[in-house]
């Protein structure tokens, strides 16, 4: 009796329009999803066009900036021994007070074991020479221009009551943030801070062509627990966040579409109960339990929403692809290729069916509890 009753309900005139109503709503969702997929895919493709071989930094675990960080200076020599590491450069960055004619200014001093090598790696131009001893330093072009520092000048620098005098032997341009710094030997760091054996960071550059995941795993094995490895050029993370921003909105928007699906399902089940009240009364008269009515309404909604959602996913995806092709005829620069993943289609169908069930429950329950003479809702 159950299957017969369901068949007769599905053959009512309103079923086709109910399926279309659900299908059109799902089509909105799947077309939006397929276009978003294309945009995200394009973003990921763009990401591959940029060479992401930026250095990795070893910083102390609790630091938010380089100047606050302290790591063991010995780490650099351990890491240099790895075949996957092209170079590992320990650096100490100190904030120091520079006495100028205009007053005291805070500047950064980057202390290095090999200033010349550091400048060469950055492809810098230098007017002068690199420091030969700890009393000499090179100044970046931007810092030199900002505080009127010239080659041959002697600068007095202070950190917490300790002072040193450094002679500027070269002005360099590296097109990096070092142009706003003073480059000096590592001894200066020990003189100004009194700290020995620690640096602010170790900058690591991997050998070209090595598997970065494997290389990072090797590096991580040598690191103590209180340090962290930071990737500098986080292109993948950046593009992922850009995509996530779109998806976050799409998810909230989808919630409203599912609310409309639930509302549509409410209408569909109400219509079914109104237009098929005679059939339901007949079933009751023939001895059907109240539960059967509820089951029939739920089964009807489930069938309609399932067919509607499958149709909707197909319609939305095919529709957006057709629209993209037509758009390309008028705007050749627009190269849209919308697509939908299988799991997304499955997710959409599942959520649509769930929303529909939710939407039809109230009218079905009301009808089940109503007496034969009453009209629900």
């Amino acid at each position, binding site marked *: 009796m159950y299957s017969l009753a369901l068949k007769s309900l599905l053959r009512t005139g309103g079923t086709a329009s109910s399926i279309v109503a659900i299908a059109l709503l799902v089509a909105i969702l799947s077309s939006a999803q397929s276009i978003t997929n294309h945009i995200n895919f394009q973003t990921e493709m763009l990401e591959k066009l940029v060479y992401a071989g930026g250095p990795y930094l070893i910083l102390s675990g609790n630091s938010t900036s380089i100047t606050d960080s302290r790591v063991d200076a010995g780490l650099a020599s351990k890491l240099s021994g790895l075949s996957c590491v092209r170079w590992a450069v320990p650096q100490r960055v100190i904030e120091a007070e520079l006495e100028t004619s205009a007053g005291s200014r805070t500047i950064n001093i980057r202390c290095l074991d090999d200033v010349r090598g550091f400048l060469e790696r950055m492809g810098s131009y230098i007017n002068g020479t690199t420091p030969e001893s700890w009393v000499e330093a090179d100044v970046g072009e931007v810092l030199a221009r900002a505080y009127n520092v010239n080659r041959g000048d002697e600068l007095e620098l202070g950190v917490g009551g300790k002072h040193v005098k450094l002679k500027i032997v070269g002005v360099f341009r590296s097109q990096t943030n070092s142009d706003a710094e003073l480059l000096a030997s590592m001894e200066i760091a020990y003189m100004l801070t009194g700290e020995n054996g620690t640096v602010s960071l170790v900058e690591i550059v991997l050998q070209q062509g090595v598997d970065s995941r494997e290389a990072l795993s090797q590096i991580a094995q040598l690191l103590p627990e209180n340090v962290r490895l930071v990737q500098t*050029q986080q292109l993948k993370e950046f593009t992922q966040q850009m995509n996530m921003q779109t998806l976050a909105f799409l998810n909230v928007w989808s919630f409203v579409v599912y609310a409309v699906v639930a509302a549509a399902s409410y209408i569909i089940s109400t219509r079914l109960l109104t237009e098929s009240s005679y059939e339901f009364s007949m079933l009751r008269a023939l001895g059907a339990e109240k539960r059967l009515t509820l089951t029939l309404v739920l089964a009807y909604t489930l069938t309609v929403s399932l067919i509607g959602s499958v149709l909707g996913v197909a319609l939305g995806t095919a529709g957006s692809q057709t629209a993209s092709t037509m758009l390309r005829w008028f705007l050749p620069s627009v190269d849209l290729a919308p697509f939908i993943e299988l799991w997304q289609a499955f997710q959409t169908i599942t959520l649509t069916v769930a929303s529909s069930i939710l939407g039809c429950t109230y009218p079905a329950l009301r009808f089940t509890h109503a007496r034969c003479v009453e009209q629900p*809702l």
Partner: protein
Amino acid sequence: MRLTGFRYLRRQRVAALVVITAFPSMLFSMTAFSLLGFYRGFSAYLGEGEDIMVIYDRNSRTPYTGLVPVYLADRIRAVSGVLASSAEAIAPCTLKGESVFLRGIVPEDFSKLNKLTMMEGEMIRLEDLNFMVVGRNVAERLGLNLNDKVLVSSVLTGRYLDLQVKGVFVSHSPIDDEIVAPIYVGQWLRGADYAHATIIRVKIDAKTVSRSDVLRVVEEEASGQPPPGREEEEPTEEPIIPRIVIRFRAEDIGVEEAASFMRSYMDRYGVTRESLMTLSLAVFFFSSVSIALGYKVIIAQHRGEVDVLRCLGASKRFMKVDLLAKLLPWSILASFTGTAMALATLTVIQSCGYLRVLSHTVPVQPDLLAIALNLGFIILLSALTILKSELR
């Protein structure tokens, strides 16, 4: 026969109809307001008004990735009627693991184009080597406070640096979602040399200077063939930035009104105000079947009452007009309720940070055309459904 005072439609059923009509209306309004908000926000990204021009790289596929000679800013500034000329280097970065755009500027020039109100701290100066000011939205999103020092890492190059927060500003513009630092910081993180910036924004006195005058200066500079790499020794107000005159081709550089420059990027991908409105309307039409079903159901639910009135002498047409008169105010209410629900939802999700595109908050603003279309189509749909319905 007069039925004005005869309330034969059940309140609960009408309430259900209002809810059912309000949801598609909400969906349409939400789609239209967010898409048009994005369009409006993106168009206004570099400034609004005919007096703001942008000098840009014609070969760039996005507004963030072009490169133009910085020295053009000085040349254009010297033209009579040009009120401000601001070279800006925009760099996508990560900060505390979050994506953010950093804009390198010359503060003195930038302030003539954008008024930044400092909520905390103070504005940066060009010689503030390791400082930045952050927009209110960025400060809230990343939990940045005055004097915080953070590691900023470039996305396009392997460069990184510490920057200290010198101030938090509000501008009620897309810049509230950005970090602002001296121009050379932007150039480092963008991977550009000191001769290039992403764009140059120019503010003109529209009565005395036009776009073609600015374009002429650019063309003259391009044809002047200055020696490549020559550094200007002329005294400048900001000696921090090396002034480098470079050779460029006039056809590579464009001059456009700021808003139309941004719109031209969207036009390339078929994104126009009209196409977005059409897309929103498509959403409405796709969901309108539910509204039509709703009206059909309410008529079916009241078939008994309608049949009785028909037996008492009411014509079909009379009944349909009466149904329409009784349901139309509710349709209008449903349309406005949907619009209000959409605005409230968008405002909530915007404040939660879910309404962002390219790390910039999408402004939510009701669009009068969208509201009118929503109302008009709901009235039309309800009228058509009721008048076309089958009465016994």
